[in-house]
């Protein structure tokens, strides 16, 4: 763990100006190695180098910063320290930025190197702001470190007691349903007015004997029957007609589907 970590955890925001990492104070290679372990990526390293310029982040010299970064990376490479790829990518980009910044204006591309430099500066400002905010946050009075909660609270217990609800109707209905569910089932068939097949056979045979002409099935029904008896008579008479046809005593004709069904005697 580097010094930076320690400062961040316990440090005060006011210490930001003394952010100077180990590198500025110590020149030895071991320190460099330690630092490399401590950076959270190339932007973090850039921010730290920028802080060493000891000016407001809005006034830093980008060119100087680029030089510092490239020097740093070169030193690390000379020491054969293993650098993550994004440090090298940043180095390449910064080298390009530097050369663009030094070129005569006419030859500049779009976006201009000034724009790129400004964007880099804005990013550094934002990261710097968050790093400072983090330090100030960590320096607050924290529960368990600076302020403490009650060591042995009694605790609040809530005992739930159920108040049961049921009404008269549900009670009585419940009983009714039990009785209905378990009562032995009795099925009764209603006494309906019907014409039996036998009486229909008798009636149709008798009426067929009267004439040799075609007669509609309805004409065989009892004329003043109430509707329910009439339906029963129609069904029975139809079956009777089929029975007579089967025995060769009558013939049936229907000219269209659902058309009137006609019936005529076959002379013996």
């Amino acid at each position: 763990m580097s010094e930076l970590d320690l400062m961040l955890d316990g440090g005060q925001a006011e210490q930001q100006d003394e952010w100077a990492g180990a590198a500025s104070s110590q020149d030895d290679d071991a320190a460099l190695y330690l630092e490399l372990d401590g950076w959270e990526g190339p932007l973090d390293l850039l921010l730290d180098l920028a802080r060493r310029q000891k000016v407001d982040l809005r006034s830093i010299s980008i060119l100087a910063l680029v030089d510092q970064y490239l020097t740093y990376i070169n030193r690390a490479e000379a020491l054969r320290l293993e650098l993550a790829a994004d440090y090298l990518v940043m180095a390449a980009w910064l080298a390009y930025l530097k050369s663009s910044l030094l070129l005569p204006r006419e030859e500049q591309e779009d976006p201009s190197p000034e724009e790129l430099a400004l964007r880099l500066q804005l990013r550094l400002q934002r990261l710097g702001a968050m790093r400072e905010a983090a330090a100030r946050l960590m320096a607050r009075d924290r529960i368990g470190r600076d302020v403490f909660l009650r060591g042995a609270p009694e605790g609040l217990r809530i005992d739930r007691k159920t108040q049961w609800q049921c009404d008269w109707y549900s009670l009585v209905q419940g009983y009714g349903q039990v009785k209905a569910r378990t009562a032995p089932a009795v099925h009764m068939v209603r006494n309906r007015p019907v014409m039996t097949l036998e009486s229909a056979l008798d009636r149709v045979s008798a009426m067929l004997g009267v004439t040799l002409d075609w007669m509609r099935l309805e004409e065989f029904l009892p004329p003043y029957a109430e509707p329910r008896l009439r339906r029963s008579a129609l069904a029975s008479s139809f079956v009777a007609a089929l029975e007579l046809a089967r025995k060769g005593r009558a013939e049936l004709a229907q000219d269209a589907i659902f058309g009137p069904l006609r019936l005529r005697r076959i002379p013996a």
Partner: protein
Amino acid sequence: MIAGPDELQRAVEATLFASETPMSVEALAAHLGGAELSEVRIALRELAANYAPHGIHLVERAKRWHFETAPDLAHLLRREREQVRRLSRAATEVLAIIAYHEPVSRAEIESIRGVQTAKGTLDVLLEAGWARVAGRREVPGRPVIYATTPEFLEHFGLDSRRDLPGIDELRATGLLDPVDDAFDALMGPDEDHDGAKEQETASDLKQMDDHQAD
């Protein structure tokens, strides 16, 4: 190390508050970097006096000090919350059977209901205070028998069990209709085919009942 008596009181207060166990005067003094025992004692006594009218008291038990809730507020630590819940259909049926047939054993309840009765169902009725154990039936196994309570009559607004409507009255009001029928009548036509078929049967049955009632 600690300046005035006020500062010592504050330190004692905070230390006892944060401590997980009651602390003796000696332990407190040691924790506070070697404060005078007599001063710690004075601080404790003054604090205890200051807290006396509060909802929290600073008390000494077996030579060790701690904060605790004022005794008259102990009820705040354990609260009862009433929760209103409707009796389940099963419990309602069991209660009704007890009311109509009391005293009645569990086996008898089950035979009337035609289904097994979960242990919890009777417990709920006992807890609600509507059913009670009314002794044992003097038959082999001596099963417990259940009856209703005065609270039951009170809750349902009955003077006596005889106020419960008889079977004939239930039938007249349609309460003896099969469950499916009554349910369908309430819920309207079923959506699936089988349901519709059942409903047909049920309505036939209803006609039959109407007929009988004539």
